[in-house]
């Protein structure tokens, strides 16, 4: 046995390493929002088919995670947050991640198509293409608006869930997409304001680095207003209702207040209280998205009792 084979054996990955390629934490957001999209859609779906649809959407999201890690292995190795991912850690070969990603892409898209309809399958395929090619390969290393583009990829799951039931795209599903889409920039940029990142070492343009923190604060404010408009607009559609609206109005006013506070602060203020306002805003943003989608579910579950929706 030569030394090389011993080394190769040492790199043998466990099942958990392959699972880590699928970015399980991102998957939880995908599963939750796809689940909401599927449940609030008008019409019925066999519960088992619905469950499978969610699973295939999650696997598709995982496939794009694996392809992202394959392409980004060079920059993952340069950043503390990502250096322990399976490829930079040397547990999985880049080629293996590529193979797994392509295989799972084909598997998830075809299975979703067979289980539901071609619109859902095509949307899933487009989501993976968008995340891997448009975001990861093309725009992530090129523009500081990368977060906005990446957010779009993460926003598709509720649209896919909706399409799995209706076979269609509707105003409601587009607004659910827009909610996550407009939410991502304030969420991520507020994080960028208080976390010392090493994106610079990896040559990934982040708004805080390329245009400065002042511009980032302005951007957060603008996107937060856009987000509020979407959130309230969603409440006026057939899947909204008084309960959703009441919660949305309160949460959006609070979120806007936070964004204005961030906007009015200087970096000196921010350093003085170790980014307290930014941290609070970021924490609240997590709750924000969860509660908005959660309230859509509440409206749907109230409908059988004549309480959900506007009628």
């Amino acid at each position, binding site marked *: 046995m030569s030394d090389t084979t011993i080394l190769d054996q040492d790199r043998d*990955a466990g099942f958990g390493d*392959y699972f880590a390629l699928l970015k399980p934490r991102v998957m939880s957001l995908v599963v939750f929002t796809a689940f909401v999209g599927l449940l609030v859609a008008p019409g019925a779906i066999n519960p088992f088919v619905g469950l499978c649809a969610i699973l295939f959407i999650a696997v598709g999201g995982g496939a794009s995670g694996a392809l992202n890690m394959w392409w980004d292995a060079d920059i993952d190795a340069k950043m503390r947050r990502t250096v322990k991912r399976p490829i930079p850690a040397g547990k999985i070969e880049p080629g293996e991640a590529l193979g797994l990603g392509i295989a799972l892409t084909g598997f998830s898209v075809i299975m979703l198509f067979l289980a539901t309809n071609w619109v859902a399958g095509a949307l899933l395929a487009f989501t993976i293409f968008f995340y891997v090619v448009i975001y990861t390969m093309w725009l992530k290393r090129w523009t500081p608006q990368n977060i906005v583009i990446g957010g779009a990829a993460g926003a598709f799951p509720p649209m896919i869930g909706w399409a799995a039931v209706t076979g269609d795209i509707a105003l409601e599903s587009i607004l659910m997409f827009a909610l996550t889409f407009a939410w991502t920039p304030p969420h991520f940029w507020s994080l960028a304001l208080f976390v010392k990142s090493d994106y610079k070492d990896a040559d990934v343009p982040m708004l805080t680095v390329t245009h400065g923190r002042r511009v980032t604060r302005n951007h957060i404010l603008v996107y937060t207003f856009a987000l509020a408009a979407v959130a309230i607009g969603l409440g006026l559609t057939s899947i909204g209702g008084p309960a959703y609206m009441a919660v949305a109005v309160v949460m959006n006013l609070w979120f806007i207040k936070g964004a204005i506070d961030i906007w009015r602060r200087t970096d000196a203020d921010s350093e003085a209280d170790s980014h307290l306002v930014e941290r609070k805003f970021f924490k609240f943003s997590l709750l924000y998205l969860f509660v908005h989608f959660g309230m859509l579910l509440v409206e749907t579950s109230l409908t059988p009792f004549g309480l959900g929706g506007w009628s």
Partner: protein
Amino acid sequence: MTQIRATHEIHGRRLSRNIGLGIVLVAFVGIVYGLTIAKVGTDPNDDLGAPWAQAQDKAAK
């Protein structure tokens, strides 16, 4: 003569991979079977689906 040594840590990782893949494959078989029942079994023009459709009719009445 070389003795057979205790299981190396690599074997543990390999085992986890094999068992994991086994579970995934069995689950996939279950999913395809379940989808078949769910989709074929709800077609009233089909042998499998006829009892289901009748039950639905009864429930509706």
